[in-house]
Each structure stands twice: as C-alpha cells, then as structure tokens.
C-alpha cells in the first residue's frame, strides 16, 4: 500500500520523499552550495579549471560533491558531509595538496538521475572541478555513458551496486587512460559485505532463511548479493516477500513470511519502513533471528522496536580500516552527525584524491586519474592520512594510503575490499560484536570479478 510513494509523489512518501520534488523540479533544488571547506563558502568559483592551470600550483583546488541534501536518502548525507568537511579541514591543516587550499562545492541531486545529470555538468563545466566526490548507484547506473564522456575521475563513497563490480577503475594500468572507466568507489560493494553477512549466518548454523525486502534498488541489490553467497554455500531460502516501502502496516507480508519454516529472516528496508515492519513483527510475536541490512544498524530502530529486537545483527562494511581511529578523532571534532556506513568511505575518498593531486603535481582530471591507483595500492610507505602521505611524497617515496573504511587498495575495477563488522542490537543500541575478516570473504568473490 501506499506505495505511492515511489512514484507518485509530489513529494512525498517515505519512498519518495519529496521533497524536492514536488515541483517537478525534481528535487532539486538547488543549489545548495557548498559549503565545503572550512570556510563555508564554496561558492563555486574558486575552482581551478582543471584544464588551464596546468602544472602550476593553483591557490585553491575545488572538488565537486553531488549530494543528497533532499530526497529519500537525505538522512544519510549529514554524516557524509561532515566526514568530507573534516577531511578538507585536515588536509588544509597539513598544508593542502600542492600547498593549495582545498575546498568542496556541494550541490543537491536529491538522488534523482535527471538532477544528477544537471548537477554533474554544472560542477564539471561551470565550477570547473577536476574530480567528483559522490554519486549514488541509482544515479551512476542510468547515467553510465554520460558520466564516462566527461573523462573526469569520480570517487564515490555511496554505491553498493553489483553493476560496478566489474565497471570503473583504471583496469590496472594507471598510465594508460584509454581503458579507464573513471568511477572509483571507496565503499565496499554489496557483493562483499553481503557475502560477509551470509558467511556469518552460515557459520552460526542459520541454514534456512526468510526474506523481507523493499523494491528499491539498494534493498534488492543487498538481498541478491546476500542470497547468491548464502545459497551457493548450502543455505536455503524458504520464502521471500517483497513489499512497497512507506506502508502503514506490514502485517500481511509478515504473516505470509512466517508461514514458512526458517531459522532466521533477513530484513532489507529503508529505516522508517523497517521500524514499522519490525514493530509489527514484535507485536505479532513471531520470534526467530532477525538479520538486518547494514543501513538499519541505527539507534532509532532499537528505541522504537524495543527489547524484542535485541539480538538482531547487521553486517556493516566500512569501519574496519587501519586508520579508522584517526578518522574518528578528526570527525568527532567537526560536529555530531551520526556515523553511518558511508561516512568513513567519504573521508577516504577525499584523502585519496588529495594524495593523487599531491603525487601528480597538478590538479587536472587526467593527472588525478593516473594517480588514484598508485597512491592507494600496495607498495610504498603505508600512510594513514594526507599529512603523512604528503610528507612521504615530498621525500620522494611511493605511498600506499591505508583508509578508514578499508585498507583502500583499489582493484583494477576501482573497488575496495574490507572486513565486515557484525553489530548486534542490545540495551545500548548496536555494538560491534564480531568481525568477518576480509580473507574469509575473498574466498567467495572471484578474482577479476570485483
């Protein structure tokens, strides 16, 4: 029911919240400018226009951030914005790339592909940014050809889509731009962390599964990633029910689901719908082990559903990188936005771009693209942040950035790999209780296909 959301919203619906859009203008709105850096101004002008400033170090270097300031996913943006701003502050404190001042121009796409088209064009062509830090799966996939045409590196903390498993990156040849696909992601793909959750479920003898998921891209992609590993390794799915998001009740869907026999059930829904569904589940007293998709590991869920949810767990990527502590320290000094799975990757995205500029000696799209691989992959001095990296590069050393979310070793397709943290709900919200190491997951993801 209710679903009108997705489409019919003039704005609305959990599903589509609208916002932004009501007018047809899709979400838009605007232009939020970016307040990027610490100066809060980000007016877009200062950017260097990648093409004409050549190798001379510019005074300011602007990066473009398409953001979900409004729309269905806007609740995830504060953490990512804060991580970005924290990274900018940290990088500038360390002298900035090529001694220039780094800033970020942030513009709203409302996660609407049509808006994303306009915003990306505006950032690259009008603001003249040499690299983009952002874009969601649902923007990247339908705009794939369009984004490739820019030939500007886009390092994004958002997309989990399996579409990107074999797309993006420099194909292992940093100097040769002809085969590059320009999109890099600093967040592990759904394939990896859903594998981690599936492995953990099987290790805990949860051999049969019920699935409740929304019909949005992120929710489906999560479930499909989970099930492919789960079923290939002996797990069985007893029942799967897809629901529209934003419903006033999920009792019918739950009653259908719990008619089947299974050990655990996987819930992949946006937070608000998940709270409604799990409250219904608690009221009905169905019991059994809940497994949650990673965006659901939030305090609100535990507060609203109550003690029935204790013991539910979610496998999240992104909080297990070698420099997580460094990140967290700088981050918490910058504000109090809640950390989510995309927050540390946003920090990593900024660090690798800044390091790539530093190594390249110039802030052009091509130069950054050529250097993203070399500053991140194994080999060279391990550095935990831009400050260490800049120093090492100035000493003529090669570096390997060790990220906050993952070690940030880009694969040939521009993906990263990392361990998965299992967080379990309890009295005090979600707490990390276990970890599935990266090597264990690696067994389930074929070489070259990620």
């Amino acid at each position, binding site marked *: 029911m209710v679903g009108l959301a*997705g489409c019919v919203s003039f704005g609305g619906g959990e599903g589509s919240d609208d916002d932004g859009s*009501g007018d047809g*203008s899709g979400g*838009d709105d605007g232009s939020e400018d970016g307040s990027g850096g610490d100066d809060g101004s980000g007016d877009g002008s200062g950017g260097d226009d990648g093409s004409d400033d050549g190798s001379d170090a510019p005074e300011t270097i602007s990066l473009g951030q398409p953001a979900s300031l409004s729309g269905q996913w806007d609740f995830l943006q504060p953490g990512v914005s804060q991580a970005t701003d924290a990274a900018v502050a940290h990088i500038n404190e360390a002298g900035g790339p090529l001694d220039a001042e780094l800033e970020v121009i942030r513009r709203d796409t409302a996660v609407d592909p049509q808006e994303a088209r*306009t915003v990306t064009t505006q950032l690259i*062509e009008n603001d003249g940014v040499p690299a983009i830090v952002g874009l969601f799966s*649902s923007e990247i996939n339908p705009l794939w050809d369009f984004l490739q045409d820019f030939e500007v590196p886009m390092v994004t903390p958002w997309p989990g889509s399996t579409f990107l498993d074999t797309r993006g990156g420099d194909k292992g040849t940093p100097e040769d731009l002809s085969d590059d696909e320009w999109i890099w992601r600093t967040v592990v793909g759904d394939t990896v962390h859903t594998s981690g959750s599936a492995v953990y479920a099987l290790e805990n003898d949860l051999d049969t599964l019920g699935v409740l998921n929304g019909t949005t891209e992120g929710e489906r992609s999560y479930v499909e990633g989970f099930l492919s590993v789960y079923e290939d390794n002996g797990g069985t799915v007893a029942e799967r029910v897809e629901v529209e998001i934003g419903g006033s009740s999920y009792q019918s869907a739950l009653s259908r689901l719990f008619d089947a026999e299974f050990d655990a059930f996987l819930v992949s829904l946006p937070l608000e719908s998940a709270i409604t569904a799990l409250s219904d589940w608690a009221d009905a007293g169905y019991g059994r082990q809940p497994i949650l998709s990673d965006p659901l590991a939030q305090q609100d869920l535990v507060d609203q559903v109550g003690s029935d949810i204790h013991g539910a767990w979610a496998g999240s990527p992104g909080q297990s990188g070698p420099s997580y502590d460094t990140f967290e320290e700088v981050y918490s000094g910058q504000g109090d936005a809640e950390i989510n799975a995309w927050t540390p990757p946003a920090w990593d995205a900024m660090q690798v771009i800044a390091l790539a500029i530093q190594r390249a000696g110039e802030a052009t799209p091509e130069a950054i693209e050529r250097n993203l691989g070399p500053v991140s992959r194994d080999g060279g001095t391990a550095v935990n942040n831009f400050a260490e990296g800049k120093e090492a590069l100035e000493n003529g050393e090669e570096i390997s950035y060790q990220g906050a979310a993952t070690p940030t070793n880009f694969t040939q397709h521009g993906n990263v790999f990392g361990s998965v943290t299992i967080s379990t709900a309890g009295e005090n919200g979600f707490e990390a209780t276990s970890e599935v190491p990266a090597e264990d997951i690696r067994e389930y993801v074929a070489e070259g296909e990620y």
Partner: protein
Amino acid sequence: MSALDRLPSGRGDRALIAGVACLLVGGLFALTPLQASLPSALYVFVEVGITFVIYGMLVLGLDLQYGHTGLVNFGHVVFFAVGAYATAMLAAQDSFAGIALGYPWPLALLVGVIAAALLGLVVSATSIRLRDDFLAIVTLATAEIFHSIFVNFEGIFGGNVGILGVPRPIAGLVGDADTRMIATILVIGGVTLITLAAVTRLTDAPYGRVLRAIRADELVTRSVGKSTIVYKTQAFVYGAALAGLAGGLFALYNGAVAPGFFTIQVTVTIWIGMLLGGAANHRAVLAGLAIIMGLRLVSRFGLSVTPVSGDVFAAFRLVVVGLILIAVIRFRPAGIWGDPQELGVDQ
C-alpha cells in the same frame, strides 16, 4: 497582447522551416567532421535545454489533450515512460538487467511511438467518457500502476536499475563533446519544432475548432452531429504518441532508462508549464515550460547569494512553486499568454 501574439500568421509554417533547418544543421554536425565549440560555462544550459525540448513534445501533446479538447490527463508521464522503455528494450545491445533485444534504433523508436499510442488508445477507450476529474484520477492511477510494474519486474524492465546499453546514435557519430551536445539539441529541438508545426496545423484547421468546441460545450458539439468521442479519442492518442516519441528520443539520447526519470514530477512540471504559459496556445505552453525550467536552473546558481542553508532553500523554493501554481489558477486562470474567452474561464 504579448509579443508572441503579434507574430504574423502562418506560424506553423515558420516553425516547420525552423525545425527542418535545425535538423539539417544538426545532421551536418553529426555526419560531417564539422565541429562546434561550446564554452564550458554554457554546458549546463545546453544540458537543460535538451531536457526542455524533450519535455516540449510532452507539453505540446498534453496541451492538445487539455488545452484544446479539455481532457484532464494527470498521468502523462506514463506515455513518456512507455515510449522510452519500448525503445530502450528493443534497441539495447546488452543491458545489465532486463530485456535487451538489439534491434536497429529507428525500428525501436517507431515501436516506442506505437506502444505509447496503443496505451493511449486503451486508456481512452476505457476512460474517456469519465468526467474530467475522474479521468484525472484514472490516468494518475495508470501511471502509478506502470511505475510499479517497471520497478517490480526486474527480469523484464530491469527494476530500479532500468535498461542500460541503449545505443546513442548521435554520440556514436560524434566523438567531440561540444559538437555532440550542439548536434543533439539541434536534432531533438528540430523534431520539437516540427511537432509544433504539426500541432499548429492541426488546431488551425477546422479539426481544431471541433476540439475547442468540445472543450467549450460538449453537448452542443454533439448536437450538431459531431461524434465527440471519436474526436476526444484522437486527441488523446495523438498526445500519447507524441509523449512516446519524446520518450524514445530521450532513451536514445541518454543511453539508458530507469524509473527515476519517469516520476510524477515530470507530469507536474509540464502541467505547471502549460498552465503558466496559457493552455490552448502552443507557443505559450512552450514559453511557460521554459519559464518553470529556467527558474529551476537559475535557482541552482542563486543559492550562493542567499543567507540560508541548502536544505532550507530547497524546501522554501518548493513552497514558492506551490504558491505560484495556486496564484496562477486564481488570478490568471488562462495563463500568461492564454485567451480567457477561448478557455472559457472566469477572470
């Protein structure tokens, strides 16, 4: 009287000539090594301009239905979507999800137009007799149903990912980005101008007078022996076919379709554009659409000078858009360039 209205008559022919000229110049850029150059600051305007000419076909079709015939279609986006999906699925070479058949794109485009027209025929056959506001609800519900279907049947329509790998004929011919954008806006803009010429001819002809008579007073029109149902069905199907054409061109321009491109926001945008400009006047509805889309684009640049945060600005702007719609209906019900008498509204 606005400047638009002072243009000499025969404007349909002028639009036709301009449209053909655009197509020829666009074709020249696409097919020859001739190159154009575009200052990068203008990219975003051309980008939005391409969307505008595509939506222009939608608003012309909608105006044929509402402005000229009085049919309240509040699900116009569904015909746009069906045209786009049909074209994409037939033409796509290798989609990540959903069906990709790999037929030549001209055939796919033709099928896209036909599919949208057929859907229009089905909707009108079943619903055209309903009273205005109920037709609005049925069309709205139809759009909702199709949106659910596109999202749900992943194996056929690619779910939320949509259909990828659609050939881009112009991009395939032109490597250089500046030339490609210029060629694209000229070619699609040319099609829109030719559409404008065609609908102008249609509505200037006696046929158009029958449509407007239906809008003004259906009973009287019927009493003089015109089958109003046939006329209404034709107007509805023409509008749907135009939307299908717009959808097909969009798919071939973007190289992919996804549900995110076909939300009700599209319907709302073209409705506001049509009402703002003045229904039943082809150039006025295009001008209205240009105003609303232009405001949207300009506001993107405007934020840096306002003292509020982006989030506040986004919500505030939409409040203003809603109030503009209310104000236009209340104080200028015929739109900026519309003719109140012809529309039969009280001023």
